């Protein structure tokens, strides 16, 4: 309810001049878009929008809550696409509980061009990381060789238990008798 009130107030405020000017005009009244900046023709300077981005976002939230999105003008916080879908859903559901009969809910043409947003570089591919690049990351060296290395390990481990058994059976023989450690014989030194 409060959301609807807010939107109604917004409309009344913005369309005040348009509504009082030509009540029986068949064409849609033209109203300057308060969500867009405007250029002063004499000074050539740009005036900021009447509603700050913060207020625009709030209005959009309230309109979504009260199903009155089609009554808001397009802006940075509300795209033309979204407005179109909102308008189509509104016409589809008809005038069930919506206030489209009211004066302030008339169809109105908003003046002012909405600047197109720059296309995000990676939008088509689906990831920004590889947007302008020819090659994708081919993985770290250890990632690339991982499978081969693990295969080698697996092969080595296959007969490990057998090898251990064999080793345990034979290793005692191979240790030389500590009593018979040979002297180091040097063939360069003469015995005399």
């Amino acid at each position, binding site marked *: 309810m409060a959301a609807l009130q807010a939107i109604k107030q917004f409309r009344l405020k913005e369309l005040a001049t348009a509504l009082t000017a030509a009540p029986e005009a068949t064409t849609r009244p033209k109203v300057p878009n308060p969500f867009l900046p405007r250029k002063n023709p004499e000074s050539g300077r740009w005036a900021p929008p009447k509603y700050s981005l913060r207020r625009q976002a709030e209005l959009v939230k309230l309109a979504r809550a009260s199903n009155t999105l089609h009554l808001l003008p397009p802006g940075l916080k509300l795209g033309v696409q979204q407005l179109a879908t909102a308008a189509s859903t509104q016409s589809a559901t008809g005038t069930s509980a919506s206030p489209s009969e009211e004066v302030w809910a008339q169809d109105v043409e908003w003046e002012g061009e909405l600047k197109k947003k720059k296309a995000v570089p990676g939008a088509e591919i689906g990831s920004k990381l590889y947007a302008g690049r020819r090659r994708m990351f081919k993985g770290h060296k250890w990632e690339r060789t991982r499978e081969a290395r693990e295969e080698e*390990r697996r092969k*080595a481990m296959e007969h490990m238990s057998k*090898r251990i058994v064999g080793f345990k059976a034979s290793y005692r023989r*191979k240790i030389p008798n500590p009593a018979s450690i040979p002297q180091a014989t040097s063939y360069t030194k003469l015995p005399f």
Partner: protein
Amino acid sequence: MASKSKARTVIVRMVSSAKTGYFYTTQRLRIGPKLSAVKYDPRVKARVLFMETKK
């Protein structure tokens, strides 16, 4: 000046035969057989035969 005589022991590296690259480092007598033992390899999480290679 007399040349330094060689040490009695030598430091050796025992490498895992499971080809993981894991190794132990020990000493043995210079005059002695090559070391080999069954020791734990954490990369494979099992006891494996380790053979000596030069350090």
